[in-house]
């Protein structure tokens, strides 16, 4: 009684007929609506009454949203495997990770050797994590230095179909699944299993996909022969519907009963993927609810998830929970691996929050990305941590609302909303955390709590400024502001006199009304004779005269070299990030400081740093205004009197610090989100007393083993024996 542990799934095997061409499309949509997991198209090139399966499948991808898409492709001699690899990745990307693929049915034994080559080539093209180009000098398909990619969204399984012995042996040796009829299955299993074992694979690496007709006995296929996917071979909508409504539920019940007493079995990852696993991680013990979205180094999705915006990483496992309960399970898994690095990530933009590591675990929250409107009259919204701020802005824009966050739409909600949030409306509407009214958090012990000014107020205090230390916030309730269209000015100014410019710009924005918030960026100095400053300003007004009057004094600050001024929605201003995945490398050197005034002394020091190459990206964000309306003791973001947030990205730690240390006495604290220095002294810069002591007390209460230590850990420098580490 083989049982390979595959989740029982169902599909339809359709003929993409030419007349009417929409027939298979309709049946695919019907299959999806009936809850089938998979739609598979038959490809029989000698039948002119069938459409090209790959083309029809791609068309269906545009007409469906959920169902997995497969084609059984024949006529290998008319296809180049390297092109097939690109096609698979393309369909997978376009369908958001729904592509499956099968070769066959194999009719000629001459094809087996070619298939063997083709599978290797397809997999090599898809394996973007490997370095170098693909060279497989096969007899059938000589591939000589083809580039890998595109990177598919998920690991696309390659299945084989055909009942001849060499095909079955090939399936056992290399395929991810085998497709055949009920009659063929028992013998096929025997051959596949022994071929798999002989080549060092687990038989459970190979899914068994069985085509059936309505009325076939199904239970023995599953229980006695380990079928994991049942493919109904029918083009009759009534049959497809009846099978879904009657046969499938009945089979599920019968299978559950028959397996009630059997131990759970988890299908093995392919050996070629297991080889890339990291030490010390109980991959086989990943909670079942987290398995579907777990990503390990051999998975296609790994290349997309390993690194963050500025930092390269090689984690051993990425867990992607979808609910607070799953977050609790992921945390429990992390507790079991306390000795490994552990990172929490909303969208991976973090600078202080590492959000990736080498050989450890990541809890990645991107699947928890909902934005809900709770109440229109009080302008309450509920946001999950994995949403990006541009998505939040777009979701609430139709209500005429906005929530100031940062300056970049690609940043995730969670990291920013637990640290501060110095955004385009900060002078008028304060920090992002100042809008938080309630939050749900999962603690290190897995408990799921709500917190607000009235429920566990100490915890609510802590998560607004030092949230990463306390747990994983799984939802935020914010009260947002009514914001119409805003003035959006992108100016390039002559800043050749760097120090003079910084002071003049600082004085301008400091004296501007609160409706105006301005961020200033200077890059590397390329020529001693010329320096530019990019000044990006949002004015909360849709009146051109007001906008111009706010900007007018800038003309006296410095010569305007370029200007672009428009009236846009806040959501448009925030829609500035691409969907490209992060490919950060190395470890950035970034320093942060908060400043009450741009003094001549500071301006000169900053000028020396930029001219001396200590920073290649130097930004000052205006603060002040509403930030100081909130008392310093109200949240764990304490340095409320600051008028400016200063950030410098350096080419190296030592180069940057040489200049930065000169400025340190001039700062009044720092904003932790932009600080990469992990030395204990930085803690007091971010959390001047009594805040730090209070945070440490709360930390010992809510996270006594210091599980959450990846981002500005308030126990840095505290001796580990003082902690309750097991």
């Amino acid at each position, binding site marked *: 009684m083989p049982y390979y542990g595959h989740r029982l799934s169902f599909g339809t095997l359709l003929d*993409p007929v*030419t007349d009417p*061409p*929409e027939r298979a*499309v309709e049946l695919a949509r019907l299959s999806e609506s009936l809850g089938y997991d998979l739609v598979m198209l038959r490809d029989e*090139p*000698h*039948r*002119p*009454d*069938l*459409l*090209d399966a*790959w*083309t*029809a499948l*791609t*068309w*269906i*991808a*545009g*007409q469906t949203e959920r169902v997995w898409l497969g084609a059984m492709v024949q*006529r290998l001699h*008319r*296809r*180049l*495997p*390297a*092109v097939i690899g*690109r*096609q698979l*990745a*393309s*369909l997978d*990307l*376009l369908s958001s990770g729904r592509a499956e693929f099968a070769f066959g049915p194999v009719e000629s034994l001459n094809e087996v050797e070619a298939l063997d080559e083709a599978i290797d*080539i397809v997999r090599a*093209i898809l394996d*973007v994590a490997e370095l170098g*180009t693909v060279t497989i000098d096969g007899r059938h*398909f*000589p*591939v*000589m*230095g*083809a*580039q*890998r*990619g*595109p*990177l598919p969204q998920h690991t696309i399984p390659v299945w084989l179909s055909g009942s001849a012995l060499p095909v079955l042996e090939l399936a056992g040796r290399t395929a991810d699944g085998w497709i055949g009829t009920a009659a063929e299955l028992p013998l096929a299993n025997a051959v596949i299993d022994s071929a798999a074992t002989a080549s060092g694979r687990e038989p459970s690496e190979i899914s068994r996909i069985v085509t059936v007709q309505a009325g076939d006995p199904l239970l023995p296929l599953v229980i006695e022969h380990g079928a994991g996917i049942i493919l109904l071979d029918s083009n009759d909508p009534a049959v497809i519907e009846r099978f879904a409504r009657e046969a499938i539920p009945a089979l599920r019940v019968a299978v559950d009963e028959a397996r009630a007493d059997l131990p759970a079995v988890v299908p093995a990852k392919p050996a070629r993927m297991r080889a890339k696993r990291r030490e010390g991680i109980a991959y086989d013990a990943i909670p079942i609810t987290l398995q579907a979205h777990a990503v390990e180094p051999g998975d296609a999705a790994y290349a997309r998830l390993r690194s963050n915006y500025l930092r390269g990483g090689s984690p051993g496992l990425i867990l992607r929970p979808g609910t607070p309960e799953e977050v609790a399970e992921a945390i429990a898994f992390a507790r079991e691996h306390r000795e490994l690095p552990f990172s929490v990530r909303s969208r991976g933009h973090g600078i202080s929050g590492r959000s990736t590591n080498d050989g450890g675990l990541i809890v990645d929250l991107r699947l928890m990305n909902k934005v809900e409107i709770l109440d229109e009259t009080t302008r309450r919204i509920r946001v999950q941590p994995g949403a990006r701020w541009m998505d939040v802005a777009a979701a609430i824009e139709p209500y005429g609302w906005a929530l100031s966050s940062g300056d970049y739409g690609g940043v995730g909600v969670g990291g920013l909303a637990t640290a501060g949030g110095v955004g385009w409306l900060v002078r008028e509407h304060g920090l992002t955390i100042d809008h938080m009214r309630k939050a749900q958090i999962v603690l290190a012990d897995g408990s799921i709590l709500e917190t607000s000014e009235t429920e566990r107020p100490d915890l609510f205090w802590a998560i607004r400024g030092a949230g990463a230390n306390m747990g994983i916030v799984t939802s935020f309730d914010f009260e947002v502001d009514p914001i119409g269209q805003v003035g959006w000015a992108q100016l390039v100014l002559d800043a050749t006199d760097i120090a003079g410019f910084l002071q003049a710009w600082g004085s301008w924005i400091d004296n501007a009304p609160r409706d105006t918030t301005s961020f200033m960026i200077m890059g590397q100095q390329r020529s001693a004779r010329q320096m530019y400053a990019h000044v990006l300003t949002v004015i909360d007004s849709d009146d051109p005269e007001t906008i111009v009057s706010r900007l007018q004094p800038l003309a006296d600050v410095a010569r305007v070299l370029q200007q672009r001024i428009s009236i846009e929605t806040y959501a448009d201003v925030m829609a500035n990030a*691409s*969907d*490209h*995945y992060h490919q950060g490398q190395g470890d950035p050197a970034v320093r942060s400081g908060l400043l009450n005034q741009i003094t001549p002394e500071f301006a000169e020091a900053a000028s020396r740093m930029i001219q001396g190459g200590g920073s290649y990206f130097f930004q000052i964000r205006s603060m002040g205004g509403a930030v100081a309306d909130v008392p310093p003791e109200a949240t764990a973001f304490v340095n409320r009197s600051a008028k400016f947030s200063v950030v410098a990205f350096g080419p190296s730690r030592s180069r940057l610090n040489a200049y930065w240390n000169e400025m340190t006495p001039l700062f009044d604290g720092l904003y932790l989100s932009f600080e990469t220095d992990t030395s204990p002294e930085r803690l007091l810069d971010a959390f001047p007393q009594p805040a730090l002591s209070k945070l440490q007390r709360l930390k010992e209460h809510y996270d006594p083993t210091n599980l959450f230590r990846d981002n500005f850990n308030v126990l840095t420098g505290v001796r580990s024996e003082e902690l309750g580490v097991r």
Partner: protein
Amino acid sequence: MTYNHDLQFGVFVSPIAEPAHHGAELAMVAEAAGLDLITFQDHPYNPQFLDTWTLIAYAASVTKTIRLAGNVLNLPLRDPVQLATATASLDRLSGGRIELGIGAGAFWDGIGAMGGKKLTAGQSIEALGEGIELIREIWKADEPTSLATNGNHYRVEGVARGPAPAHEIGIWVGAYKPRILRLTGRLADGWLPSLGYLPDGPASLTAMNAEIDAAAIAAGRDPSAIRRMLNINGRFMESERGLFQGPVDSWARQIVELNRDYGISTFILAADDPQTIALFGTVVAPLARELAGEIVRA
């Protein structure tokens, strides 16, 4: 010489893989802007791009009226029998919105790396001619006999014909040199060069047109059977600085002049941003059509 074709307008969009929906989204933008056509380049050896055929099929699925084509598909890496089946299939699924832009191949190192056969320029043109004839044969689904050909590059035996496309798919060839221009005149339904590759700018079109016309006549065809198309690139600017470097009305005038002087009737703008595509479709195209109408009436 205008070859009597109506003015048509399209865009040429990069089939980039990240973000994957770039091309499909711009197809929807182009359709909403009233453009006739969206086209994608095809370089299967470049993994920065999606597979162009897969993208075309997907983009066709999420649009309703716009026509789609490769610009141009790479024949050396796409088997003509397979290509004929695929284009006919998509033409049926899309209600007749597919055209076939096709090229002989150019980047032979990339083609060879993928497992394609490296050909000389002459061989590749010969292969293109065989390929086009084979594709047309496959589309003849009603012919009773199965297909057998015995070319130097493509030999098939007993291949089933069909499916038949939903409409007469136009075969468009990208061509610059005499031999492939003559092939275009003999076999193609459209000629699709790029402005940027014309050695002397638009002035080059005269001699190339003549080459195509002569080959068409020699093959017993009417030269106007071959639509003259042009990939263009440019920038909208406040004042006119050159060809497709200026305000919308100068674009419209230049289009009408290229139509009048060289018979170009399809203008395909390389663009990857929605604003440019919208401007081309909603402002330039109607202006050019209006201007062309005035000239005809005058």
